[in-house]
């Protein structure tokens, strides 16, 4: 007995037909897919310009079927500002890791948010510099071993983690600022909804929007993909609580 074949899962239209270069088990691919699905669902692919960072996702522009530019390390929010100010009817998003956004690019992200630029920022927090081989990032957890904190991050000498979503949520220019996680299907669905809300915020011109995504880095963490997902759940989520840190009144009224 045979059943008819039904396609239940396919490449979203927002993607090009290019295999990603990400390590097995890394959640960059999941985050990319969620963005592509949202752009497709909102019919925005044609009018979107992405801004890629420096980091593992430096080649993000190979995977999205939209126009893309590649920013200097940390400067994506400034570059995105330049694009959005001259093309206000286009959709502009940056995709940045924690080294890019929370270390070298802290000035650019804070001021883009403070100016209330109508941009969407997808912020990947995997607690280390991935591309350069797993060095300590501003988001590295206390005690966490990296190649530049080999005895574990000592907060006495290496400082404390930065909670970006909480920090940016204090700025009046921010319309939507939340943290989600990619460690299990339920949270991935919630993350997708948040990404949708962030783009809806931009479409309506309601200010700066950011979704921080807790993500895995199995290769640099020295874990299997499954162990990495557990690490996010058990160690990252307690340090970086999930939640809505700023949902401006106008954004709260959006019904998807």
């Amino acid at each position, binding site marked *: 007995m045979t059943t008819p074949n039904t396609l239940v899962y396919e490449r979203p239209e927002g993607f090009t037909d290019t295999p990603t270069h990400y390590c097995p088990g890394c959640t960059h691919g999941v985050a990319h897919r969620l963005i592509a699905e949202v752009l497709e669902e909102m019919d925005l692919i044609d009018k979107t310009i992405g801004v890629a960072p420096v980091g593992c996702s430096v080649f993000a522009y190979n995977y999205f079927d939209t*126009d893309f530019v590649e920013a200097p390390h940390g400067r994506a929010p400034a*570059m995105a*500002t330049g694009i959005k100010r001259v093309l206000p009817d286009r959709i502009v998003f940056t995709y940045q890791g924690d080294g890019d956004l929370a270390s070298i690019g802290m000035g650019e992200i804070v001021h883009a948010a403070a100016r209330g630029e109508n941009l969407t920022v997808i912020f990947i927090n995997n607690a280390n510099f991935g591309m350069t081989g797993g060095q300590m990032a501003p988001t590295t957890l206390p005690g966490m071993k990296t190649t530049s904190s080999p005895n574990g991050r000592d907060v006495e000498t290496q400082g404390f983690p930065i909670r970006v979503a909480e920090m940016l949520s204090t700025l009046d220019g921010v319309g939507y600022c939340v943290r989600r996680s990619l460690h299990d299907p339920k949270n991935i669905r919630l993350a997708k909804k948040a990404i949708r809300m962030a783009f809806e915020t931009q479409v309506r011109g309601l200010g700066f929007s950011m979704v921080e995504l807790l993500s895995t880095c199995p290769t640099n963490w020295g874990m299997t993909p499954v162990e990495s997902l557990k690490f996010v759940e058990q160690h990252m989520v307690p340090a970086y609580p999930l939640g809505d840190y700023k949902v401006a009144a106008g954004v709260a009224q959006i019904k998807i």
Partner: protein
Amino acid sequence: MTRELWKGNEAIAEAAVRAGLEAYFGYPITPQTEILEYLSRRMPEMGRAFVQAESELGAINMVYGAACAGVRVMSTSSSPGVSLMMEGLSYIAGTEVPAVLVNVMRGGPGLGNIAPSQADYNQAVHGGGHGDYHNIVLAPASVQEAIDLTVLSFDLAEKYRTICMVILDGCVGQMMEPAKMPEMRPMQRGNWDWATDGRMGKRERRVLTSIYLDPIEEEKTNLRLLSRWKTIQREEVRYKEYFLDDAEFVIIGFGTAGRVALSAVRQARQKGIKVGLLRPITVSPFPFDVVERLVGRVSGFLVTEMNSGQMLDDVRLAVKGRAPVEFYGRMGGVVPFTEELLHEIERISSGKLSVETNPRDAWLERMAQV
């Protein structure tokens, strides 16, 4: 249009608007802040984009973004601020998008001071950011020339998909002179085949990047940039010459130093000294061929700059030891007086010059005596 009294910085701002500037991003720094202030009023009034960025890093990367979108975009700054922009400039060069940057130079290095200087010649002409690229660099010596070259800078930047810098010292930026503004050009976006302005149902996606992970691809990019630069060297050299026809020796100076030199040359001519002036407008591409043609015709050169002899090295490269080259410079924000240069002209016209003399060392020795 009649001539009006314009301050250099404000004239540059208005000239950029009339050339079709669609977006400006800047940060306050003396002695160029009037450009930012002027455009903070003018751009919104014209319905165009203006952002006071959080830093020069922010400003140049906003320029980078808008340049990728294919619009006429500019930033302006002064020496320490331009140093901060070097990262962005390198990326803009590597991505091959057009952008205009004005540097109203001040004394340095470091925080230096806010007095007029030409100390950023090497940064603009010979490097600045990392990697292998060249900027077109224009050097005005008057408010009128600052206006004309600002307009030209946009055309050149777009024609060659390159960075065009206008370098002037705080003197030209701050002084007022009668000058004529060009007519307002209609703001028009080029129909570029490279701009990342969204597919909009018309085309395949586009990517603008400066990363070429494969060394062969990067080398191809380097060669493409170099080949474009050779064209620029061939097509875009600009300079002004004064009294060169019968000159026995020639002063070479750009910007304000060149302008002071012109006054000294005129006074020397009244005294019967046959001296001429070559004032490069494009310090990059440098007018090597013009200097080449003068070698053999004249008995020597005097280079004058408001730095320690940065263009001097380019002149020596052109002269190749075939004629004596002398140097006179002031640094640190000091503008030379006409009398100083006249004195140099008289010294050279009455003395015996040698190709063996190291011009910078000889100048330092003379400076030590003063």
